[in-house]
């Protein structure tokens, strides 16, 4: 185990391999879609129950899971665009708590936005027979990664939901993140995240900084506006 980082500034991978594995499993399970007909015909995918396509999408969804401040900020964007009080409530619940401090696992800025090294965690899932990862494209250039959830993987997910309260937070949060992402493809999520200056302006290879102070400022301003111009209490 590699958790002797308490009190020190986090260096190296901020999360453990197993943590990442559970989080990704929950994410893949939530985000996967039915297999296509040709896929169903593949013998290796006999046990597959669903597929989540593209690594970009996995990385972007994972970014929101690991950075509650960015998630809350995106919820505020959604509220401003739609006026849906529920979005504001979710954002307020996050920003009023210590989640941005306690639940934040920063990621690096990479070519295509936030990036974390997931291969270790995925190998855990693969060797345990929970998922199959397939690379598509040519030998030279991988065009796309697809993550197939196997039947056993789904059983484990249900087991986690049922028997591991330690992961209840992720179970809930995966739901919220997926709801926010909706039908958007990975590149669309990437574009959304790039609209935040702090995210876009982070130099490549460096950690993306927290925007919790900014998000909390926005929330306060929105509440002030609601108090002034009427509307519900948030």
């Amino acid at each position, binding site marked *: 185990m590699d958790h002797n980082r308490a009190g020190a500034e986090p260096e190296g991978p901020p999360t*453990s391999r*197993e*943590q990442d594995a559970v989080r990704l499993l929950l994410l893949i399970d939530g985000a996967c879609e039915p297999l296509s007909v040709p896929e169903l015909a593949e013998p290796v995918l006999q046990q597959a129950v669903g597929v989540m396509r593209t690594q970009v999408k996995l990385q972007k969804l994972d970014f929101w899971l690991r950075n509650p401040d960015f998630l809350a900020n995106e919820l505020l964007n959604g509220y401003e665009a739609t006026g849906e009080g529920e979005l504001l409530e979710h954002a307020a619940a996050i920003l009023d708590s210590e989640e941005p401090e*306690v*639940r934040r696992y920063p990621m690096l800025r990479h070519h295509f936005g936030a990036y974390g090294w997931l291969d270790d965690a995925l190998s855990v899932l693969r060797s*345990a027979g929970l998922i*199959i990862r397939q690379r598509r494209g040519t030998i030279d250039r991988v065009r796309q990664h697809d993550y197939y959830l196997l039947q056993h993987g789904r059983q*484990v997910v249900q087991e986690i939901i049922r028997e591991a309260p*330690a*992961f209840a937070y992720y179970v809930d949060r995966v739901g919220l993140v997926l709801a926010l992402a909706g039908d958007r493809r990975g590149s669309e999520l990437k574009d959304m995240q790039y609209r935040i200056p702090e995210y876009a302006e982070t130099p490549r290879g460096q950690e993306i900084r927290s925007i919790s102070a900014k998000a909390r400022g926005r929330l306060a301003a929105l509440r002030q506006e609601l108090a002034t111009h009427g509307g519900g209490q948030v």
Partner: protein
Amino acid sequence: MSAPQAEVALEDRIAKKAGVPVDDVRDVFAAYGLPLVVTPARARPLRLHRLRLAGERTGDVQPGPFDTPLYFSEGLTAFVASNFRGKSSVLELVTWCLRGTWRDALQTRVRHWLRHVDLDATVAGTPMAFRLDLEEGEIVSAVVLTGPDITALEEVRVPDPRRGITPLLRAASTASYAEQIAGLMLGRMDLQPLLNSRKETSTTTHGWPAYFGAIYLPTGADKPLMGDVMTDGLPGRLLQVFLDLPAAAALTRVKTVRDVRVAGNKARRKEAEAAAAARTTERNRLQDELGKAQELLASLSPIGTSDVSLVDLAHTAMDLAQAVADAQDVWEEADRTFRRARTERQHAAKLLNDVTESATARLLFHGLNPTSCPRCDQTIDDERRREERQAHTCAVCAREVVGDDEDPQAVTAEAETRLEATTAAEEAAKTEREQARTEVRRLTGQLEEAQAELRRAQSAADLPARLAAHEAVLRLEGALSVLEAPQETPPDEAEEKAIRILDAAASLLDGDSKATAAKLFEEINDEIASLATGFGVPSLQSVSIDRAARLKIYPVGSAQEWFQGQTAGAKLRLRVAVAIALLRIGRRNGVSTHPGLLLIDSPKSEEMQSADAHKLFRELAAVAADSELQVLLTTADFDLANATLPKDTIRQAAEGAPLW
């Protein structure tokens, strides 16, 4: 009424009625030159003796030079000639000489013929020779001479002191002559200008020409009974003057003076009220400013801190400021500690999450048999799995599994302990921070109090400002005390008294005048009725004239009529009747002041029946013969004149020939 006792008593009567000393009455009357002793008017007879007209006539009728003397009879003189043969001009030229101005009836053409116009007349007993030299119809030189008797003045055109012939006036223009004659005649006839108050603020004066209207009877259909001016109540005035109703002139003047004075008084009061209003406004302004100045002064005054040393207060404030700064430091330090503790606690919480999650996940995955190689994706066979169970070699990489060297429970417990410790530390830091904050607030409060006290104490140092404010208050108070509240403008007692006196005088004179008039008018009314009937005014039962010279007529068997409603012929006859009645009744009562001269131009032309004209002519001749009345009459009716008038009264031109 002209008894001296009654006149002397007038000032006493006024004083008594006005409730003032006699001296005040005298003062007021003297101030306006009003007569207190109303002397009876002098008789003012006007008698014409001779009119000479010289010049050169142009035109169709007897052109050439002329120089004609016309002598007037004592009573009636009738000028008889065809139309446009100089009859009316005789009356107009007499008018020019006596009144100073001709009337519109005098033709410009006729004026241009004349070189000399000489009139000999007796004016209130004084023989006078009016000598006018004309060129182009205008006076170039005029003189009025007087002499021992009227006949001595005949043929004389310049002063002759040796014969006692002296000038009364000289004029070198038409206008100058008019002006001087008006003055001369008013004086000689003992007449006052007719004053009238107009709109209570000014007076209008009617002079000699207005009086002359009672001599030259107007012929126009709508002319008044007396004179030829309708306005300003002049007909009534003329009537009163020529009947010499007691103090009639004085009454008029007193009333006029009173009216003007009352109006002046009213204006002054209005002015005073405006001034009072302005004063009130100024007072309010000063009061307002004073209030502000007092407020300012109060704000500058020190409040009971004068015994505390300013230096002590300053020291205290400084010490407190230091203490606040120190406490602030303490608080900031506590705050930093708290934040650090909170971060620690958050790290601890996060760590606990991590170890718990990791341990849970590890347990989870540990319980799962490896099925595939994550590297080559090939299935782990049963042989490898058995090896792992029995020989403790990893089913994936075949190395020895040494087991977990760490107890996950111990790791989790350690993380929990760390969280508890950091939580406690955070709580402690928080408490300390709260205490520090409380201290900062306490000291800040004290400092603010000290500073406020210092400011109040410092206001003692505002002495110059306070003195200035004090001075402003005193100055405004002074200004206010000088500017006393306006009181009801006290009535101008002298003024009120004067008005009271004038009121009393007007009332008394009016009363006297009315009482006498009532008796006189009865006689006059009878005389007018009798004369008018004689002149041919039809079916006249009685008439009634009042002091305003309004004549009511009561025809036999029909409703009362007014003079204004009569025909032109009737009007003329009534006018003549009135004038003669004034003369007769006046003489009978010793108040005859009518000049006794009447000029009547062509009465027959005034819509008069021939029979009426006969009656009028006959009666006029008879009246003139025994009334000390001189009448100048013109007519173009030769038959009428010769049938009705005595021969010696007729100045007759041949038919179609000029009169002069």
